Every structure is written in structure tokens, then in C-alpha cells.
């Protein structure tokens, strides 16, 4: 037997083991249908999970994008303040983060494709279960117990195969999403732990501090200048009288 037929045998064996739990063909029919509906619910939940996970990933990506924008702003501030060294650092971080983002973006798109296929799979499964429902009534009415057993077995295996396939696709999409989340999380963690010496993590970062100092310095200068001019515009400084 070729490898490819063997996979089918494994699925068949699993599904048959399930069906054998029922005691007679009549019962097998309904039991099998019931199991199919249960599985369909699992599939729907699975697909919904993948969609949710993908959305979360998109939000994570957006946050990283905001960090890129912030780094850009900081680079400009640094240039304006004549601190080319800081500007350079910010731009270096920005470029590193942009590469990570591009990669994540590509993967989110791949996930999107997978998700579309999953939804199509789910629909096929739904249609086939509905088709099984009408077939089982025909089988009940027209066939002897032994024949019915065979026909149910065949139909149920077909559905079981579709289900197993969809289940595997869900599992893979989930794995993929988790991997990507772990990666996006790792980038964030690096940022938080300062390994990237990130300058985007709020006012605790070095770049922020330096820029804040510069800006505070500028404010002080401006204020000082204002006070000086105010004081200067009045009459001559009075002598302090005793």
C-alpha cells in the first residue's frame, strides 16, 4: 500500500472505531449524524479561534507600526536639537523594526489565505453533513440492516475524512498564528527588556530622556529669555532698599 492510501486507512479506522460504539445500524445512523453535528460545532469554534487570533496579531502589528512612527518623530526631534547621534540611533532601531514588520505582514497575509480556505472547508463540511442527513433517511427506508451498515460506514467515513482534514487545517492555522504571536511578542519583549535599547517604550527610554532634557532645556532657555526681556523692558533695576 502506498503512503498516501495509508493516511486514508488511519482516518477510516478512527471513524469506524467511533461508529462501532453504536449497537445497531439504525442507531449508528443517528449516532453518526449526531457526532457529525458535534464535530461541526468544534470546527466552527476552531475557525472562530483562528480568526480571533489573527485579529490579535494584526493589532500587535499595528502597535509595532506605531513604534516605527514614534521612532521617526524622535529622529526628527533629535536632528532639530542638533543631536545627530541620537537621531542615528533612532533611525537604526526604526529600520530593524521595519524589517520585522514586513516579515510579519507577509505572514499575516498567508494566514489570511489559510483562513479563507478554512471557511470554504467548513462550508463543504456543512453541506455534506446536510446531504448525509437526507441520505440516512433513504438508507433507513430502503436497505436491509446489513446493507445499511455498509452504506452508513462509507458515507460516515467520507464525512469523517472531511472533518479530519478540516481539523488538521485548523490545527495548522492555529500553530502558525501562535508562532507569529510568539515572534511579535519576542520583538516586544526585546524592546521592554531594553536589549534593543528601545527608544519607543515611553518616557523611561534613554532617547526619550535625552530629548526631554533637551526640550526642557529649551523651555528653560525660552522662559529665561522671556523673563529677561520683561524685566529689561521696565525701568532700570531698582536698588534694593534697606
Amino acid at each position, binding site marked *: 500500500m502506498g*503512503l498516501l492510501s495509508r493516511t486514508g486507512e*488511519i482516518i477510516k479506522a478512527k471513524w469506524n472505531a467511533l461508529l462501532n460504539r453504536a449497537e445497531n445500524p439504525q442507531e449508528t445512523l443517528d449516532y453518526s449524524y449526531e457526532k457529525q453535528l458535534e464535530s461541526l460545532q468544534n470546527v466552527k469554534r476552531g475557525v472562530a479561534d483562528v480568526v480571533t487570533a489573527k485579529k490579535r496579531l494584526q493589532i500587535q502589528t499595528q502597535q509595532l507600526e506605531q513604534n516605527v512612527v514614534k521612532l521617526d518623530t524622535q529622529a526628527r526631534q533629535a536632528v532639530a536639537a542638533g543631536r545627530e547621534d541620537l537621531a542615528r540611533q533612532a533611525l537604526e532601531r526604526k529600520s530593524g523594526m521595519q524589517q520585522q514588520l514586513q516579515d510579519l505582514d507577509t505572514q499575516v497575509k498567508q494566514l489570511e489565505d489559510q483562513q479563507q480556505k478554512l471557511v470554504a472547508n467548513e462550508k463543504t463540511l456543512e453541506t455534506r453533513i446536510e446531504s448525509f442527513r437526507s441520505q440516512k433517511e433513504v438508507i433507513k427506508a430502503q436497505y436491509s440492516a446489513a446493507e445499511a451498515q455498509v452504506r452508513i460506514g462509507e458515507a460516515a467515513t467520507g464525512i469523517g475524512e472531511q472533518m479530519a482534514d478540516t481539523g*488538521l487545517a485548523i490545527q495548522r492555522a492555529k500553530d502558525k498564528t501562535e508562532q507569529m504571536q510568539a515572534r511579535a511578542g519576542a520583538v516586544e519583549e526585546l524592546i521592554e527588556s531594553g536589549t534593543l535599547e528601545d527608544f519607543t517604550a515611553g518616557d523611561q527610554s534613554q532617547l526619550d530622556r535625552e530629548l526631554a532634557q533637551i526640550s526642557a532645556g529649551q523651555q528653560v532657555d525660552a522662559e529665561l529669555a522671556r523673563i529677561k526681556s520683561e524685566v529689561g523692558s521696565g525701568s532700570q533695576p531698582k536698588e534694593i532698599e534697606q
Partner: protein
Amino acid sequence: MIARLMGEGQFRIDEALRSELNALDDRAAAAIDAEDEPALDEILDDMWGLVQERGERLPDDEIATSDLIIPPSDLTLEETRKLFTDEGLVPDLPSR
């Protein structure tokens, strides 16, 4: 004869295509034994191509079991190997 492309759907295939696929199947088995993942991926891609090109997609409401189940090439060698054993990459059906 029915072939399933995992995650993609089922296709009706003729005898000529079946024997072409069988030949590729033997080579796939050899690639797995040799742990040659690039070769395996290439063979699986060829199989997918053949089925998509020459097979006829099964309608949604037709219930059939597949004679061949072809995994996608983006599985790892280990995952593909599991598919072919009782260990199974195929998830169990719900027991509830």
C-alpha cells in the same frame, strides 16, 4: 477514483493519473526514508499540480472517501511522517 488534497478538497481522477500518482507515491516514500525534505516537497508539489490540473473537483454535497490523501508540501518531514503512521497528525474525532 478519488484523491484528496489535504486542506484543499477532493478530486475525481482517472486511472492514468492514478498510476502517475502511484509512481510519485513510491518516490515520496523513498524521500521520507532518506529524510530528504526538499525532494519530498517537490514530489508533493508535483502531485498537487497534477491533481489540480487534471482532476475534477467533487461537488460540495457529494460524500465520498478518498483513495489517496495527499498532504501539502509545507508540512515538515516529521509532520508528513506522522500522517502516515498510527501516531497520526490527523486529529481525533470528538469523543463527547
